[in-house]
């Protein structure tokens, strides 16, 4: 068999396996999602709020320095200082 035939065979086998693999993965992923969402729903979605900083940078809000946010800033800064 010529080397080009070998190459063609490789191409057909290769693409077949790649497609087979990823198609199987589609089904498994879908199945997984169904099972997880049905039997193990997330109790409470973890809210990751945009950090106030992101806002603060853009708009430099006049009223931003209420106690809580400052406390948070100090807390974070101190947490990093302790590392």
């Amino acid at each position, binding site marked *: 068999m010529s080397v080009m035939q070998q*190459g063609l065979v490789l191409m057909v*086998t290769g693409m077949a*396996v*790649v497609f087979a*693999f*990823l*198609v199987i993965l589609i089904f498994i992923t879908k199945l*997984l999602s169904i099972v997880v969402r049905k039997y193990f*729903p*997330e109790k409470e979605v973890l809210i990751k709020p945009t950090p106030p900083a992101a806002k603060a940078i853009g708009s430099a809000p006049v009223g931003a320095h209420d106690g809580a946010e400052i406390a948070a800033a100090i807390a974070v800064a101190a947490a990093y200082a302790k590392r």
Partner: protein
Amino acid sequence: MDLGRALLEFWKSTGLVNISPGQVVMILVGLVLLFLAIKKKFEPLLLVPIGFGAILANIPLAFIADATQNGFIGILYHSGVETGLFPLLIFMGVGAMTDFGPLIANPKTLILGAAAQFGIFVALLGALALGLTPWIDFNLFDAASIGIIGGADGPTAIYVTSRLAPDLLGPIAVAAYSYMALVPIIQPPIMKLFTTREERMIKMEQLRHVTQLEKILFPISVLIVCIILLPTATPLIGALMFGNLAKESGVVNRLSDTMQNALINIVTIFLGLSVGSKMQADKFLKLETLGILALGLVAFSIGTMTGVLLAKLMNKMSKSHPINPLIGAAGVSAVPMAARVANKVGQEENPHNFLLMHAMGPNVAGVIGSAVAAGVLLAIVPVIG
């Protein structure tokens, strides 16, 4: 010995006397890579070390790339690239930085990561054809390694080549990383050629929220499928999924952080220098290199095309959930540039169309797809080659 002889010895040891024209060319090539990296911002994390490595490897009498002379890049290459260790550690870090969420939310985009691997096999055939000419000598092992450039994934290309055709590692790695850097230039014309303006304007539905448990189970599932179907791909897929599990499990954040930072950075430096050091004049300045560069470009282009075409077809077949064919191009991998390119080309038609997240699905699917293609080549080539 007198002063005259000492100066003569010194003179005989200068670069001026010893450097070959080829080495000068390769040092210039290294400088061009540095220019592209620093000025044009083409994949600088890869091209800065690769370019510098190319320069260092072409210095006469310094043997920096020669492990037998304790050349330091030679040692790095020998211990990390020949063994396949560095590309797998990079893959671990990539896994720890990858969010498979978009893929889990829209799993059918996985198939786009399959379609875009077609370029691999076209380039493989092309390499075999070139090998039939009297000027170039590529066997099946070489052709498989050249084809994998079309995987658009540096570590996969390096891993496969280190196993099948280590002699070609220099040009193949350089081609893989260069074309990954050039994705913003190579892909858009092809994407536009095979899509209509209307298709490029298609808006896609927002992706649903993916739970943490799905994200934890996904890497394990992929690994298990890979174990069952294609054990030869498990070093690549395993390293990738180990990193991803470390990230998504949420219980080993310090390990995941290290994989994403110190470890991947150290290995990137070492791997980049090592790959660049394979651009030694006597091995790089050959007709074969031109062939590899040309075939790599073919592979990227074909992969982009087949990705887009399958996405087009999928869009035609699913009226209820429209698919913008541009995201098919992201299936070649080249994470995250290819996804960004899909987004950018989309926004050229409609500035309010955000395709980035949608393109991340096929983009990371492409990483899995090319690792699977690599596994097939590693399984079959040594048997039939």
